[in-house]
């Protein structure tokens, strides 16, 4: 078996296993979200399905699939049907460029080289930002095509929110890009070789925080869940969706949660690298998984503790606080790097 | 008959008597509450005086309600308002008898909180408040027929719990 053939087989295996793994993580993320919500609120959360209710998400999926597919009579039907996919597909694409272990180097598996990334893409960071911007079209179009005022307001809010937060997110990620000297996520992880104090979260602490806050907005989670805003807009862009169409939005949201956690750990927390070099004997994917778990927990913690911002407050935070901070961070990073070089 | 009234209420009564004299139909006192009965024509004048006069200063309308007294054949309806003064801490009840179909001027200009009360009095008793900005049914459905709080309206209603499907889409 020649090397290209082996690489092709590996690629197919990775392309199948990775989404399945992510979907499993998502299923348990949804379960843990509910358990954590219960824990924070002094309740027990789901308990019936499986041990400690851990199979709850699968029960939910079966329920959603078996529900009637309702489409409002006056909605724009093709767009209404398309919107969940527009929200769903881009977040999966980002997965392809995130390294979950060492890439390149010698043969490490049955005499062949196994790269722990699906596609070694040079502009992985840009792909992430682009796909994040694509996913919002699902929300906006879903809100618009439902022909409901609540949905429309939700879609508009999502659109405005994305525009203001993508910018801050891009500028803060550019700081990392300058430090690594590359837009490839593989190179970014390689740039963070060493112990945990060598990771980018120390030099990029401001950019990292801005990126984290912006990512909450990107994920549509409290305190920036204005597009859904249950208490104000019923369910925002999801008001008219039901059954599996709603399930796809919901699912995309959690896949996005996992993917964004992967991106945050890749950019600032060393990706798949162990926090101390002596711990390198533990494989990279496990470290990445642990970092994802930690970040998901933080996202959930924030969501279940904090009150929602008002729409105009959210916009002013985006434009008046996060954007200037991220630009300043980029400038300082650029100056320091050119001075050092 | 003024025994049992607070001093502040005696002042209120004296003031009202001085201003309106014989136009006040009667004053009654029950359980410490002072009730002034006025003619419907004087309704607006008396109430605006209550609102504006310094010694009265009734700045809050506590409630306005309709009432039906079928045995009083000439004027079977009654509108009752309860006024409250935060400045002086006294209360006053003003009532007016009304004949069937007789209008009463609205007092939403004096106290905006009368808006819902007047709508309720209209839908329950059929008392029309002239000049009310939005005199529609409030608590019952738009297609409700009759005035349910009148004494001759049966307790169980007139439509027997039937939902009026024939009016669907017209309201």
């Amino acid at each position, binding site marked *: 078996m020649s090397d290209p053939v082996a690489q092709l087989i590996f690629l197919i295996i990775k392309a199948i296993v990775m989404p399945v793994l992510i979907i499993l993580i998502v299923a348990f993320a949804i379960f843990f979200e509910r358990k954590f*919500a219960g824990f*924070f*609120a*002094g*309740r027990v959360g789901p308990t019936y399905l499986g041990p400690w209710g851990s199979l709850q998400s699968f029960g939910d999926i079966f329920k959603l699939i078996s529900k009637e597919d309702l489409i409002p009579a006056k909605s724009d039907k093709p767009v209404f049907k398309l919107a969940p996919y527009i929200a769903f597909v881009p977040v999966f694409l980002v997965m392809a460029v995130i390294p979950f272990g060492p890439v390149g180097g010698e043969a490490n598996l049955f005499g062949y080289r196994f790269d722990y990334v699906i596609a070694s893409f040079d502009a992985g960071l840009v792909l992430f930002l682009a796909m994040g911007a694509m996913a919002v079209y699902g929300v906006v179009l879903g809100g618009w095509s439902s022909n409901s*005022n*609540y949905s*429309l*307001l939700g879609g508009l809010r999502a659109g405005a929110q994305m525009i203001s937060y993508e910018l801050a997110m891009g500028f803060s990620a550019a700081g990392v890009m300058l430090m690594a000297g590359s837009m490839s996520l593989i190179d970014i992880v390689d740039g963070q070789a060493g112990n945990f104090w060598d990771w980018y979260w120390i030099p990029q602490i401001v950019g990292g925080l801005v990126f984290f806050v912006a990512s909450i907005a990107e994920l549509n989670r*409290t*305190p920036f*869940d204005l597009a859904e*805003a*249950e*208490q*104000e*807009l*019923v369910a925002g862009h999801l008001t008219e969706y039901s059954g599996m169409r709603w399930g796809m939005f919901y699912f995309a949201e959690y896949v996005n949660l996992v993917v964004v956690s992967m991106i945050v750990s890749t950019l600032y927390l060393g990706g798949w690298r162990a926090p101390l070099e002596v711990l390198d004997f533990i494989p990279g994917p496990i470290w990445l998984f642990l970092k994802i778990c930690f970040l998901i927990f933080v996202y959930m913690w924030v969501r*279940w*503790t*904090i*009150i*929602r*911002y*008002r*729409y*105009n*407050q959210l916009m002013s935070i985006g434009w008046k606080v996060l954007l200037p901070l991220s630009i300043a961070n980029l400038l300082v990073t650029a100056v320091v790097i050119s001075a050092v070089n | 008959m003024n025994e049992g009234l607070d001093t502040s209420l005696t002042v209120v009564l004296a003031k009202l008597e001085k201003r309106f004299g014989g136009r006040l139909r009667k004053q009654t006192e*029950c*359980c*410490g*509450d002072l*009730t002034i009965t006025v003619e419907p024509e004087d309704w607006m004048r008396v109430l605006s005086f209550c609102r504006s006069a310094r010694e009265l200063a009734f*700045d*809050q*309308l*506590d*409630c306005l*309600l309709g*009432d*039906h007294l079928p045995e009083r054949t000439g004027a079977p309806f009654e509108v009752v308002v*309860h006024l409250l003064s*935060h*400045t002086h*801490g006294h*209360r006053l*009840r003003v009532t007016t008898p009304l004949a069937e179909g007789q209008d009463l001027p609205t007092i939403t200009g004096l*106290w*905006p*909180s009368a*808006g*819902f009360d007047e709508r309720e009095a209209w839908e329950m008793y059929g008392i029309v408040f002239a000049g009310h900005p939005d005199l529609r049914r*409030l*608590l*019952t*459905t738009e297609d409700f027929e009759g005035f*349910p*709080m009148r004494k001759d*309206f049966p*307790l169980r209603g007139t439509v027997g719990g039937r939902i009026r499907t024939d009016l669907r889409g017209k309201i």
Partner: protein
Amino acid sequence: MSGTQDTQGLVPAAQALSRRPSLEELRERKDRTRRHLEPTGDVMTISMGPQHPSMHGVYRAVLDLDGEVILAVRPEIGNLHRGVEKLCEHRTYHQIIPLTDRLDYISGFAMNHGFCEAAEKLMGVEVPARGRYIRTMTHELCRISNHILWLGTSIMDLGTQTFFTICFRDREYVLDLFEMLTGARMTHSFARIGGVAKDLPDGFDHRCRKVIDFLPKRLAEYERIIKQNRIFLKRAKNVGIFTSEDCHAWRVTGPTLRAAGIARDLRKDEPYAAYPEVEFDVAVEYNADVYDRFLVRMKEMRESCKIIRQCLDKMPPGPFLAPDAAHSLPMKKNVLRDSAAMIQDFYQVFRGPQVPRGSVYRCVEAPKGEMGVYIRSEGGAKPARVRFSTPSFYHGQAVPALVEGEMVADMIAIFASVDVVLGDCDR
């Protein structure tokens, strides 16, 4: 008592210099915080409610929106109308009591109490001391349960659901007390004309003291969580300013009025039950915004704990129902032992109290605001006209004045802060 003098904003200069804004200042602040009322583009009309997560029941508000700014609100109520007033005309006074706690089902006893106070005033019934103390205590328990529920739901309306269940957990302690005392958790129908239905059960005193010792600690914790939350401060401060003159014009009473700087509390101003005999402070705040309404209610809960403790300390022995054979039911435990009590029971149940002609209006300080009851009697056992002027009815009416010019998200916060319950509103 003195607070009523502040009504017209005639606060002394020294006070105006402190943190208390004058009426003019509040008016100016209100104008500043309200956004435009003229449309800048197309107006979108949305119907918020009756099926909406944060309309606290079935309130419907038709909003005219310019973007996110509310230009006009048309409130629609009546989805929960049950014709209580009509039913009252066909019931004896004793039979009306269970109807009243379905008005504001969150604070049922306050409604019972209001009706009984009015009926007693009309009949001239004197409530014995023990009855008055039990009523005061139950009324305050009811206030605590109402305010805790309010706290949970209003914070939830701002976007966090965690607080909601935490508050519900603490409300359970109060509801357990109600269950022990009255046998029911929400609609207890506990007041009777001339007193209350039952005496305190064994062990109630101890359990009640435990709860009121424990609750203030919890409240302090909540207050700390909320007061240190910058997002809450941003969402609540200077939002929904409603000055005292607006409150009077729209008959908005209770905590909302007290948050506007007016120390009006019927428990002090027109005392009833055992309130003159217990010591408590009226919670007042001065900024008239959502945040101050929150502070007022938090303070009120602490004062309620104080009142309950004093009631338990001072609880006099003796009968809890008036020995008034013409108007009041006998004590249930006597009915099967004492022939006079049995005759009284039969008489009251089958014929009802014999009430003189006349009309009466009585207000009590329910947790949500002033709850007035008007009764006109033509003699006999049934009233000729009963009118409940309930706080939520007027608060629901005042919503346009409260929220026009604010944003949609603020409307939710403001609507939650005035505390409307639709059972109370629609009657």
